[in-house]
Each structure stands twice: as structure tokens, then as C-alpha cells.
């Protein structure tokens, strides 16, 4: 599953980093009907999480109300050099992951 992430490659200790992620996904609500009146099964990314240095720093739980191609912007306090790991999964069991390393300087 295609996603784009934006993480600063370098940050000062104690700095608040802006993290952005956007994922290509149709986010099928389950309320849309086809030509025969049957509902397209609901298929949305239900969970998105971000771990920083092994610790969970962000989690989002989504439902039918979130638009297609979800985009998130959140803030993380830079305290150690390490990896930011993003993971997500949709209702059909398909998921994805992205990672980025940030170097923290004093």
C-alpha cells in the first residue's frame, strides 16, 4: 500500500518534530451501493500507529467518517536518535509499514 511520510532527518534534543503521513486508500465507507443495490463492503484503514525508538507515540483509530487517502500530521518530542516506524491495517487485512530514521543532536 502506497504511503508518503515526512520526518526530519535531523533534530535537536528537546525539539518538537512535525511528522506527516499520507496513505493511498479508497476508505470504502460501507454505505455506498452498487447498481443492484448491494452495499460495497466497508473497507477502511482501522488502525494507524507510530513507534519511536520502540515506544508508541501516536495511534489513530479510523472508521467510515474518514475521507479517502487519509492524511495525518502530529508532533513528537525528539529525545533520542532512532527509528520512527509506521504501521497500519485495513478491514480486508491488508496493511503497510514505513520507517524513517531521525538523528538527534544536542
Amino acid at each position: 500500500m502506497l504511503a508518503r511520510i515526512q520526518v526530519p532527518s535531523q533534530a535537536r534534543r528537546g525539539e518538537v518534530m512535525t511528522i506527516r503521513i499520507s496513505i493511498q486508500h479508497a476508505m470504502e465507507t460501507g454505505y455506498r451501493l452498487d447498481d443492484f443495490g448491494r452495499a460495497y463492503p466497508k473497507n477502511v484503514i482501522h488502525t494507524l500507529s507510530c513507534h519511536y525508538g520502540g515506544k508508541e507515540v501516536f495511534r489513530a483509530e479510523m472508521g467510515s467518517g474518514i475521507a479517502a487517502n487519509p492524511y495525518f500530521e502530529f508532533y513528537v518530542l525528539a529525545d533520542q536518535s532512532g527509528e520512527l516506524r509506521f504501521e497500519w491495517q485495513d478491514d480486508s487485512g491488508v496493511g503497510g509499514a514505513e520507517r524513517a530514521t531521525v538523528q538527534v543532536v544536542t
Partner: protein
Amino acid sequence: MSIGIWCAVTPWSSHSAESIPPIFSISPPASSTPLAPLGRSGITFASPDIRQLQADNFANPGMLWVTRGETIWRTPSGVKGQACASCHQDAQQSMQGVSARYPRLDTGRGTILNIEGQINRCRQEQQATTPWVYESADLLAMTAYLNYQSRGMPIAVTIDTDNRTQWERGKAIFHRRQGQMNLACVHCHEQLVGRKLLTDTLSEGHGNAYPIYRLEWQTVGSLQRRLRSCFNGVRAAIPDYGAEELLALELYLGWRSSGLTVEAPGVRR
């Protein structure tokens, strides 16, 4: 009420196109190379939040298609195992400004090639593989990727003796009343520019930001998808994707927006 009386009071039968003062008008070109009138890009009619979303290269959802297009560019396809990059190398250099010159006339066959047509021509003739259908994820991604390489460059579709006939045809379609609404493109997109159509502001109808991410569509769509929905809007028969009628109209629109900068991938409501 009889049909005859109803017809007599039909507003559009007595309403001529000339009764609405034009915002700007296109006079028939005297020379064989007509000059395009410089207009206003559609984004200038959009709300501040939409303008901001288009300008932000990360948040702009169309950039997901650009990213996908970049992957396809490097991925071999077809029996010969050739990728786009096998011939064209680095798209950032080789494709710069290319799509700003489309649609163009395919002089060999006498037909109009838009950027989608050119991509599929390459797929069939160079990569020996199947063409992508309109609005498929791959074709939209490749179109977005190619047009993105011309971002910020002026559209340069010129009319000469070769493509003049097709341009005339596109121009006629642009000025032709059609559908149950009995409206031509020119009524909304030249004579009523800046006025409201439901909650949207009518723009000049330039295609310089295509393919666009439309919030209503929740996805990226081609210029032909937009044109088809305008045909639907005036309750006219909708031409098929890739129809000659749409290609001629695309050529006319390309000429008409010449000088405006490419903004792909655009964002609209």
C-alpha cells in the same frame, strides 16, 4: 397546457448567447497561428483551504499518484522487459515541459494525441504491452507523474496548418449549444465566469492543473472525466473516453490555456 404553448415560453428558445456581456471574447483568428487569450487559472477561483492544499507538496493528495507514477516509470513492463526509464532515462530531465505541449497532432495518422494517448502509444509500440484504460490507477499515476515534470512551465499548444481543422472542430464544440439545458461551454466558462453555479464559483475552464484530485471524487481524475461530467451537467449525450470529439475539445482547451503554467496535480473541491 399544450405542448405548443409550453414551447413558446421556453426561456432558452428566445435567449441568445449574445445577450450576456462577455468577460472576454475570442475573435476569429485572422492568421493561421491564432494567439491564445491569457486567462485565469482555475485555482484562483478556489477557496483558501483548497489553494493551500494544492500548494503543499506533501499534503496534496495528488502527490500520492505522482509517487506511484515514479515507481511505474522505473518498473519494466511487457514482453521486452522495458521500463519507461529504459528509453527516457531520468524523467525529471527528459520529461520536463513535454506534457505542456500536449495535446498534439499525430501527423502520421491525422489524429489528436493527448498525454494519455501518448503514454498508451509508447506502451503498445515500444513496450509491446496492453494500453491502460482511462481512469485506471496506473494511467492516472503516469499522467500525474509526467504532468508534474512540467509544473510551473507555461502551456504551449500552438495551432498551425496541420492541426487547424481539429482546432476549429474543438472551437465549434466549445461554442455549440447542447443537451437539455441547451448550454455551450462558452456560456458558463467565458460569459458567466466568477458567478455561482450552485455553491461553486464558475472558472474559465482551463485544464492546466490536470489530472486533479477532486474532493468530490475522493480520487484523481483526468481532464476527460471532468469534460464528461460537464456533458452530463448540461444533460447532453456523453462521448466515450478517448472519443475524437473530446480530443478536439482538449486541443482547443490546450490552446486556450496556453501561457498559463502547469499546476499538476491540482486540487479542486
